[in-house]
């Protein structure tokens, strides 16, 4: 009887001890992902108990998840390896009876540093992007205003053919002058957007833009000279005089200016 009682006692004690041990164990689980956020299936997960070197291995499932149960409290080395990625190793401390989650994001096997790019080369700059954005915006306004300016410019040239000579009326000259003033106003507004657009350091200027900029040295001064000479010619005609002296160069300067302006538009619109 007593032996049976002691046997039962031993079973009970063993069961109590076992349940206590089990309650002290925990489960480590987690998800393994790539830098893009995609899960990494079939990654090798190794968990080595630092105290005695006991290692448990498993693999992630199709959802990139792993689970290692029945872990005693203590420090572990969690290692994750998958093809195409650098192995990852972290230390995990298991606490008695506590299940833990440890997600792992793997790094690519190759990085830009492996290709010889410095951090400065690969690092972007919001400031530089802002400068590029401002430059593009201003040049876009310059382009649109420049195209719009071509309309009153053409109208000014056309009315100019009727504004000179003895048989013209003051109305014709007035219309020509107003169109000319409108053209000049739009022109200098457009030009200001191009002149004050941010410059990008380290850029070598080449291609059709060089011709476009060179032509500005013709139509720019021409746009100043043409209205000046035009005002002189207007005054002479208003006094009943023939257009004479330097004022007579008004039409030639205007035509050259208009031609340079047209060529400037074509230089960046068409491929020659």
């Amino acid at each position, binding site marked *: 009887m007593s032996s049976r009682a002691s046997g039962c006692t031993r079973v009970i004690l063993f069961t109590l001890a076992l349940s206590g041990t089990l309650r002290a164990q925990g489960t480590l689980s987690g998800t393994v992902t790539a830098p893009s956020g995609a899960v990494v299936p079939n990654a090798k997960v190794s968990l080595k108990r630092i105290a005695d070197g006991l290692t448990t291995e498993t693999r992630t499932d199709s959802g990139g998840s792993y689970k290692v149960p029945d872990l005693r409290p203590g420090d572990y080395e969690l290692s994750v390896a998958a093809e*195409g990625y650098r192995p990852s190793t972290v230390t995990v401390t298991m606490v008695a009876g506590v299940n833990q989650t440890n997600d792992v994001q793997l790094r690519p096997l190759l990085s830009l540093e492996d*290709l010889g790019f410095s951090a400065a080369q690969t690092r*972007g700059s919001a400031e530089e*992007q802002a400068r590029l954005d401002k430059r593009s915006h201003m040049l876009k306004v310059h382009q649109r205003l420049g195209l719009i300016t071509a309309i009153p410019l053409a109208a000014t040239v056309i009315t100019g053919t009727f504004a000179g000579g003895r048989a013209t009326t003051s109305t014709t000259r007035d219309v020509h002058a107003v169109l000319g003033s409108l053209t000049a106003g739009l022109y200098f507004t457009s030009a200001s957007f191009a002149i004050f657009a941010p410059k990008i350091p380290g850029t*070598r*200027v*080449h*291609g*059709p*833009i060089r011709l476009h900029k060179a032509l500005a040295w013709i139509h720019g001064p021409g746009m100043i000279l043409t209205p000046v000479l035009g005002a002189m010619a207007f005054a002479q005609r208003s006094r009943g005089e023939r257009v004479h002296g330097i004022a007579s160069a008004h039409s030639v300067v205007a035509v050259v200016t208009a031609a340079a302006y047209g060529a400037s538009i074509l230089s960046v619109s068409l491929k020659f």
Partner: protein
Amino acid sequence: MTFLLLSALTLIQTPSQWVLDSSTLRFHVSHPLHQVDGVSHAARGRGVCQARSCVFLIAVPIKSFDSGDSNRDLHMLQTTRGGQFPIVTVRTQLPEGATRSDTVYADLEIEFAGQTAHYARVPFHVVMDGDEARVSGTIPATISDFKIDRPTLLTIPIKNEIPVYVESTWHREK
């Protein structure tokens, strides 16, 4: 964007690395008034072969592309957010025995303009010469894949398709 290919059977079975020696990358932009090609020779690349596959990384600075017009290149830099994301990268992984022919089909992961796009089974022609490999092909990239606003000229936008032609030469490091 450069992409390299290696004859998988030859190099994957032996642990090795591949290094990009030279490359020509050419993107093509279509507009009713202009056909533009931008060229870069500044790509860098490397491949690492493990037990059952080779992993490749190729990268090229966006600023290195030259279309023959600096104004256009700066506009391209701005449009593609090159100030914030100055490098284009291409990653791929070829499984063991990917091909035994002269044409390899690769799945590409491309990071450009702050976006990531995937292109499946892009064909590349490979010519092996000892430890040297010449790889050529075309990546069927589009502007919309990278959420880039289509630039315009005289209010007319360019085409969405911007194919990238690739020619590259690699050598194996032992």
